[in-house]
């Protein structure tokens, strides 16, 4: 078990290194000339060259990546210029390990930017996750147990509608009607626990969490329903019935246990995907999370931020994969780790 985890983590680190090289290479190959972008429109060739040298953009791809990797492990200074360090140390920003880069556009290290935005995205992801797992699985099981009834058809129909509505539309409708027109909630504005206490934090999350959860909930209702219906066709459910077990035991001990296993996998990966920030929901409600940061970074050609966010998301996905596999081995005795 421990050996397995170590091996998976090791493989994960290698995957991250490859990921960062690929992300780096993609931006290296982009048509945007970073130096002239920073230097501005009225920039002479000499000035441009000087900027490139100061920023390290004239270096080879391999060296630039090596600097980045070194920054992740050791931290680094921006700009890393010994002359400048003597003449004007106040212009140098020290970026502590793990340093994912320095964003000139934001005027801050990427690590700090992520530290500021992560709690918002994490709160949103967790609250939406709880909503959609509880709601989606319960409604999905209900629909499956009442298969063919009005309740089932209603739930399937509703989830199809919810699935079909784009998130930005749902978000805007909730914002406009629930918060502004009917005044049922406050105008959503992210409030941290430090600012507004747990109550304020939760109520500030209500509308965005519902918006984000609705889409997933619709998908999980349908998925759970089909897994549960499928599970009732299994031979071992027939065996359970033929033993004379009450239908309740047949359902909860035998059928549902098997049906819910694949949902754990899906849930783990979907949750990890949200760790990169819910771009649309955060944009609609103007929540300062990582999704919004990512949108701004990519529209500003803020490469360090973009690369940092990509690598962070990749880390979460890799970790979630490992956790899901471990969970699977706990749930299903047939699964052997190794």
């Amino acid at each position, binding site marked *: 078990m421990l050996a397995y985890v170590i091996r998976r983590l090791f493989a994960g680190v290698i995957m991250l290194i490859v990921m960062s090289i690929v992300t780096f290479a993609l931006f290296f190959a982009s048509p945007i000339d970073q130096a002239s972008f920073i230097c501005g429109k009225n920039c002479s060739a000499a000035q441009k060259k000087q900027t490139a040298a100061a920023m390290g953009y004239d270096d080879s791809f391999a060296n630039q990546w090596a600097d980045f990797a070194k920054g992740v492990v050791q931290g680094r200074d921006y700009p890393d210029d010994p002359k400048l360090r003597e003449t004007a140390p106040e212009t140098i920003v020290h970026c502590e390990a793990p340093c994912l880069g320095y964003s000139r556009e934001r005027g801050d290290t990427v690590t700090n930017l992520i530290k500021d935005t992560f709690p918002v995205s994490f709160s949103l992801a967790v609250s939406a996750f709880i909503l959609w797992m509880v709601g989606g699985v319960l409604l999905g099981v209900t629909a499956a147990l009442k298969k063919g009834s009005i309740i089932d058809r209603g739930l399937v129909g509703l989830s199809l509608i919810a699935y079909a509505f784009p998130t930005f539309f749902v978000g805007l409708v909730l914002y406009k009607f629930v918060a502004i027109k009917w005044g049922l909630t406050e105008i959503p504005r992210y409030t941290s626990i430090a600012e507004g206490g747990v109550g304020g934090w939760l109520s500030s999350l209500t509308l965005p969490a519902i918006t984000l959860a609705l889409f997933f909930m619709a998908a999980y209702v349908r998925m759970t329903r089909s897994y549960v219906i499928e599970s009732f066709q299994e*031979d071992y459910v027939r065996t359970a019935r*033929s033993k004379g*077990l*009450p239908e309740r035991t047949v359902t909860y001990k035998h059928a549902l246990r098997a049906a819910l296993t694949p949902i754990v996998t899906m849930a783990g990966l979907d949750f990890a995907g949200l760790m990169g920030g819910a771009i649309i929901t955060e944009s609609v409600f103007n929540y300062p999370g990582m999704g919004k940061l990512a949108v701004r970074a990519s529209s500003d050609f803020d490469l360090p931020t973009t690369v940092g966010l990509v690598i962070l998301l990749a880390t979460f996905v890799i970790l979630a994969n490992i956790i899901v596999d471990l969970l699977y081995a706990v749930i*299903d005795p047939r699964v052997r780790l190794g």
Partner: protein
Amino acid sequence: MSTTSPSAFATTDTAAAPLLSVRELQVHFPTQDGLVKAVNGLTFDLDRGKTLGIVGESGSGKSVSSMAIMGLHRGTNAQLSGEIVLDGVNLLDISAEEMRKKRGREVSMIFQDPLSAMHPYYTVGNQIAEAYRVHHDVSRKVAKQRAVEMLDRVGIPNPDKRVNDYPHQFSGGMRQRAMIAMGLINDPNLLIADEPTTALDVTVQAQILDLLQDLQREFNSAVIIITHDLGVVAEMADDVLVMYAGRAVEYGPCKEILTHPEMPYTWGLLSSVPDLTGDTEARLIPIPGNPPSLLNPPSGCPFHPRCPHREKVPGDLCRTELPLLVPGQRGESHTKRCHLPNPDAIYAAEVLPVIAPDLAGDTADAAEEL
């Protein structure tokens, strides 16, 4: 509904009455394409301690009828009629809760593929003990002890350790032994074995059949063994019921049916059995064609489109009229559903020489051999 009086078996002395008495059982499934008539008027009796073999191709209604006896069609859209009288009680009349209490206790079932029939997430012991605890108010510990005893009884080595294994850690034969332990843990009067050896290695098949026979003697249960393997029937069954398209087409004592079959479908089944001692160059003779659609069964005798002997019946009887299940030339106990006037002669002259040339000369010997 049924042609016999409904309470006939409830009032008679149960010692004389058969343990299980099925009368005119019909199981129909309404589908979007129409009514699927899976079982059409099945009638048979089974005494305590006896074994009935039900034989037929896939889709002939074998499993559907056994599921009906187990009450497993309840809660589905299946339409059942007729009577299934077990120990004086018509199982089609009782409530779902009463049926549930009989399931596993008075009648239990073992299934074809023990791997898929056991829950992969629970230990074998848990699943066997569960079957005991539903019907007995005992602690988990007592039930587990009982499971260990049963595993020991069905020949699982180290049962006190294996009881904690999961089904996937058992071999196919051991899994089926465990299923048998699960089926017999409440000492049911009736055990239905639905193709219990089909998914197993040939070498294991015989062991499982031996075990079933031993346990049947020990527990004095009646057994219904559903199979398409006539070898299994020959070894196990006292009576044989041959099913085709949801109907019994031949029914009688095992030896009688196997030595003097009177229905061309039974001949076909016998012809499809490979003969170990036979000529290696000889070919198996399959029954031509496919089992009929249960949605639109053929007119008349449902076997007529595949029957090589239908020309021997005068007129167009086979195509127009469903033959009744009536005694043939060999006495009351052997009934068959066929228009052929002289099936014994045709069997001896045309069928036997092809499938078992060495027996063809002396049919009396054939009885002993089989």
